[in-house]
């Protein structure tokens, strides 16, 4: 396994609170790695510890197997795409992309800038100032400015949150394609589980400064190891200590399967691609099922049976 980044028991304690608490994780070279969690969970602080904007209170940050705790941000071969992009407003697109190259004393500035602009499809806009760019274009300049330096790891802090919601899905797939093309390791922070699931090879779920679980999107969605992870990745029905996701919950008017529970329909909401049926079990427990609209409709007060496949149970 070719590790590019490793955190060993990394903590960041502030006088008032502990932002990150003993986080250990490894990132493989070329991976698209997501740090997922609610706001205040410590994911951004973890990213800033890797970038060098914060000093770890304890633990080690290793880049290519070398300890980099003591290195300043300008001494680390990692680059950041900031949440607000942080483009220099007094420099043109070209000036922004050249800024890092000049620090490295690169000879072929013009060629590098051209390649970077090609990569993010912004050729012809090198003379524009950031204020003259759209949100999506700004993001691409921020990506080009960082990628042109060929970092070992590209850090992205909520890169899609500043974009118009309509644009987000499109940029998401562009981002994934870009990462595949350049092959750079992406470490990105997000609070949006759909974003994390659709983009990443590996997801680390954080909560209250602690690492809850690391795994592939399938791992953490289908096989969560904690209740927090199960709940954060999507809705869960907790039925007698067993977790079942709404889309895995089946409703029928007749008894069927091993785990059959009688329930009463409370409401049914048409969501376009499916029906969201809210039911109440005998013990007063509320169970939500998302079922195909092709299976017919349900009306409030109707007596039904809930069932699911044993393989769909979340075992914690």
């Amino acid at each position: 396994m070719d590790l590019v980044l490793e955190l060993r028991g990394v903590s960041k304690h502030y006088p008032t609170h502990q932002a990150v608490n003993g986080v250990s994780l490894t990132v493989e070279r070329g991976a698209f790695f997501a740090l997922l969690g609610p706001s205040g969970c410590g994911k951004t602080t973890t990213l800033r510890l890797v970038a060098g904007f914060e000093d770890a209170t304890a633990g080690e940050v290793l880049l290519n197997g070398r300890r980099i705790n003591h290195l300043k941000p300008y001494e680390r071969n990692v680059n950041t795409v900031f949440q607000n992009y942080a483009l220099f407003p007094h420099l043109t697109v070209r000036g922004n992309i050249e800024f890092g190259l000049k620090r490295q004393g690169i000879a072929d500035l013009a060629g590098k800038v051209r390649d970077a602009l090609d990569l993010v499809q912004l050729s012809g806009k090198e003379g524009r100032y950031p204020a003259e760019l759209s949100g999506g274009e700004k993001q691409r300049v921020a990506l080009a400015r960082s990628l042109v330096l060929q970092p070992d790891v590209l850090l992205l802090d909520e890169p899609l949150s500043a974009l118009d919601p309509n644009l987000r899905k499109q940029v998401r797939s562009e981002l994934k394609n870009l990462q595949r093309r350049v092959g750079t390791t992406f470490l990105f922070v997000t609070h949006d589980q759909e974003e994390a699931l659709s983009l990443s090879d590996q997801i680390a779920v954080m909560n209250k400064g602690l690492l809850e679980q690391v795994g592939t999107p399938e791992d953490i969605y289908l096989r969560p190891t904690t209740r927090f992870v199960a709940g954060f990745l999507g809705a869960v029905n907790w039925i007698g200590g067993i977790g079942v996701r709404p889309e895995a919950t089946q409703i029928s008017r007749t008894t069927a399967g091993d785990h059959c529970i009688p329930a009463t329909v409370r409401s049914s909401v048409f969501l376009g691609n499916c029906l969201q049926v809210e039911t109440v079990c005998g013990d007063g427990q509320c169970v939500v099922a998302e079922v195909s609209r092709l299976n017919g409709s349900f009306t409030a007060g109707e007596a039904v049976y809930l069932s699911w496949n044993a393989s769909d149970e979340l075992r914690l």
Partner: protein
Amino acid sequence: MNRLRLLFLTPAGIVLGALFLAPLAIMLAYSFLTRGAYGGVTADFSFENYQRVLDPLYAVILLRTFVMAATATLGCLVLGFPLALFISQSGARKNLYLQLVILPFWTSFLVRTYAWMFLLRDTGLVNSALLAAGLIHAPLPLLYNDGAVFLGLVYGYLPFVVLPLYATLERLDKSLLEAAADLGARPWITTTRIVLPLCAPGFRAGALLVFIPCLGAYLTPDLLGGSKTVLVGNVIQNQFTTARDWPFGSAVSLLLMAIVMVLLMLLIRRGGEKLI
């Protein structure tokens, strides 16, 4: 809504009209009249006052005033930027340092200028200390020259540069500094390539706040420059006091004001550009 706005604007309008516009109109009228025998004016219309301003004697003073004001402004900017930068990076002590910058305003400018005289004169603190230390054998000529005036102006107007620069630095998006470091810039490069250019509005505001009052300064050149360093402010003051030539004083004042206004308009036009 409009009536309310008018109501609130009226007091300021009256004050400005009575205490600013009216005197200005009087000055404008006086500048085209002839001096009276014992001060005041006689109602003989003439352009003579404006012709006299073009006299090489006054042109030289005017030029020297501009050079002095520009040099003092530059001095304030050069000293003020590092100071503002230091304060903006001082964390919890920011407010203390800002108070210290403003502290001199609690004492009269006149008193503070006299204090400089006590420091700089031949038997002053600086010369006494240097003599006592054996570093010099005769007092240095620190007072009554251009250098003393420059020092006095920079000292007096430094806060007017520090405050707008500090405000600009505070508004600066801190992620830009992190982005610069992230892209490999050491602190010196970040300061000169990112912070300095982005402080342009602060520099412009500070330069205006120093340059304009320096053009009209008369107390500092009078006390620290002695008779050798006469600036246009002293010329104007003299016309209204000892020389008793109000029409000529008015003409010089208006000319100075016209020049300042032209400069201001040029600067505002530049500042109005979309990009700094």
